């Protein structure tokens, strides 16, 4: 199960400025980058109890010197509820009631199909009178061409290319190019991990596609190839560690079970043997008086077969000397 919500939410949260810069350059130009605050989601669940939440990321920032609220909702559903734009409006209105400041609502549509253009406004009219038009910003990924983003140095672009419009045969290429873009951005390891994880989640390749990917990677220049391979390798290494851990757990369980079975048999043999030895020592002591420590130990150390022999032989013993002789022979 892919947790789309969490993947997208983390992407937008961790790369909020890149997101705004990529899709809303005009806003980005006049946004005070130091004024960004992420607001907790709880506010909204309080507002509309029992209803499915709609806002995924809530950000407060100074936009043109005015404190502004950005609401970013990610809609994954491929069918769009009829009342979607109405719900957007209602949430907007609720937030406006609480904050009373300008709000910029943004929706990211992440579904693959249908390709129909999604609504970006909600209208109320009465009779022939138009009462209100509520507009929100829409980023509909399946309307965007990945080719338009290959030269953009932006982490959000490298991630979201994986959800843009593409032909089935282009999937391996888009994956490779996204990774190349990502590798060229100079991000830290955690950021690279997050975005490459995003890319891979949405561009999981089958065996054939994998082959195409591998033959294409072989053709790119070696420095870039290494950068991409580094991303792949670091995931692979993480997997190897995880695999070892998982294998070890399972191995321990199976090994333990088998060990117990074998050990049980061995233990029974040993137990019977030491019991027999004990019995024989008792018998001998009944007949010839106490055996010394070393004699007892000799008997306890005898194999099961020897003990059986001793059990028979002792019937003919007449004195402790016979035992000594017998022990000397084995």
């Amino acid at each position, binding site marked *: 199960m892919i947790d789309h919500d969490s993947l997208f939410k983390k992407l937008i949260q961790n790369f909020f400025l890149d997101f705004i810069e990529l899709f809303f350059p005009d806003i980005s130009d006049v946004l005070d980058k130091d004024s960004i605050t992420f607001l907790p989601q709880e506010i909204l669940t309080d507002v509309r109890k029992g209803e499915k939440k709609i806002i995924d990321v809530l950000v407060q920032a100074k936009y043109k010197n005015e404190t502004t609220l950005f609401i970013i909702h990610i809609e994954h559903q491929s069918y769009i509820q009829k009342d979607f734009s109405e719900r957007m409006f209602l949430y907007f209105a609720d937030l406006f009631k609480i904050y009373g400041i300008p709000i910029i609502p943004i929706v990211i549509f992440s579904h693959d199909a249908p390709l129909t253009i999604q609504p970006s406004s909600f209208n109320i009219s009465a009779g022939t009178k138009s009462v209100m038009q509520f507009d929100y910003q829409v980023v509909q990924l399946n309307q965007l061409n990945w080719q338009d983003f290959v030269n953009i140095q932006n982490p959000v672009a490298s991630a979201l290319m994986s959800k843009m419009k593409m032909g089935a045969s282009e999937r391996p290429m888009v994956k490779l190019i996204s990774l190349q873009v990502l590798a060229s951005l100079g991000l830290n390891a955690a950021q690279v991990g997050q975005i490459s994880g995003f890319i891979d989640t949405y561009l999981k390749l089958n065996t054939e596609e994998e082959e195409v990917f591998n033959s294409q990677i072989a053709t790119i220049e070696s420095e870039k190839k290494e950068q991409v391979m580094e991303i792949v390798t670091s*995931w692979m290494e993480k997997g190897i560690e*995880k*695999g070892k851990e998982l294998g070890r757990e399972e191995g*321990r369980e199976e090994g333990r079970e088998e*060990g*117990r079975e074998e*050990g*049980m048999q*061995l233990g029974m043999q040993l137990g019977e043997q030491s019991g027999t030895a004990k019995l024989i020592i008792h018998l001998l002591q009944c007949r010839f008086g106490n055996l010394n420590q070393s004699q007892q130990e000799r008997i306890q150390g005898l194999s099961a077969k020897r003990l059986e022999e001793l059990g028979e032989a002792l019937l003919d013993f007449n004195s402790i000397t016979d035992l000594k002789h017998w022990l000397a022979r084995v």
Partner: protein
Amino acid sequence: MEIVTSWMEKGIELGWEEGFKIGWEEGFKLGMQEGVELGRQSAAATLVLCLLQRRLGSLSQSQQERIQVLSTERLEELWDALLDFNSITDLENRLARI
């Protein structure tokens, strides 16, 4: 939620077998120890029960059960003591002290 990429899955497959071998050895050793102990205990319990019944006649179900769950050490102690038992009462007294 931790992302598991297709590359990581490949790694998991690669690492799994190595981990399994290591784990198996560890588990086997541990299981062996446990098994030997269990086996010794069960063998000792069988013998002690056998000896007791020879000496004292048949034991009740509950007496048998109490003896079967004794540790190997306790069973050996019981063994040493049972030569002096003359009646079921001696056994009961002994079991009461364990």
